[in-house]
């Protein structure tokens, strides 16, 4: 199993541009999450999904959108990039039938908005 994969690894955006961060998991997990990690800070939850077609906001959802059309994929969309969105983004997944707090993380996407 590849686990949780994220693309791209690194991206530079100009202010106002848009992009989609891709996340795919092959563990048949029904729960998926997007976090951002700022320097010297812990991870903050952006959005999460408890199954295909079901998404909900986390702590810091402003400026982001998500969709979950399949169990495997959970893309994160930035519509109008702002410098405040410079961060490292992590996708994670878990399985509700065990303990969904045991989460499996991707390697992260480093985003720089200039």
């Amino acid at each position, binding site marked *: 199993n590849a686990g*949780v994969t994220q693309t791209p690894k690194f991206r530079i955006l100009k202010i106002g541009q848009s992009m989609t961060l891709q996340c795919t998991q092959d563990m048949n997990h029904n*729960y998926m*999450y997007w976090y951002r990690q700022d320097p*010297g*800070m*812990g*991870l*903050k*939850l952006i959005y*999460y999904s*408890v199954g295909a077609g079901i998404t909900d906001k*986390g702590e810091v959802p402003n400026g982001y959108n998500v969709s979950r059309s399949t169990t495997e994929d959970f893309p994160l969309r930035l519509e109008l990039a702002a410098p405040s969105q410079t961060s490292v983004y*992590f996708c*994670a997944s*878990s399985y*509700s039938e065990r*303990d*969904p*707090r*045991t*989460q*499996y*993380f*991707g*390697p*992260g996407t480093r985003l720089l908005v200039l």
Partner: protein
Amino acid sequence: AQSVTQLDSHVSVSEGTPVLLRCNYSSSYSPSLFWYVQHPNKGLQLLLKYTSAATLVKGINGFEAEFKKSETSFHLTKPSAHMSDAAEYFCVVSRSGSSNTGKLIFGQGTTLQVKP
């Protein structure tokens, strides 16, 4: 409300010496507590978790943590540090009701440096 505070942003130890990473929590309910580790350029990995069973929890790679309700602490320890332990460590508390959603609250992280 729930929160978690990691008392040290950076800890440096010599290889073969004990490791202590400190974490205090605040919770209105009986908390579930976790330690996650992040090696350089990798995603986070669960080290261990406390979910109201035994207060001394053993994890992977020789790490353990003790839940102390009277001190609202969940410190992470290891008897002998190895070079491969160098990483970022996060103390995490789960939100009440999060056993259904998996929502987690992360501390700020502690960077563990291991010197030869």
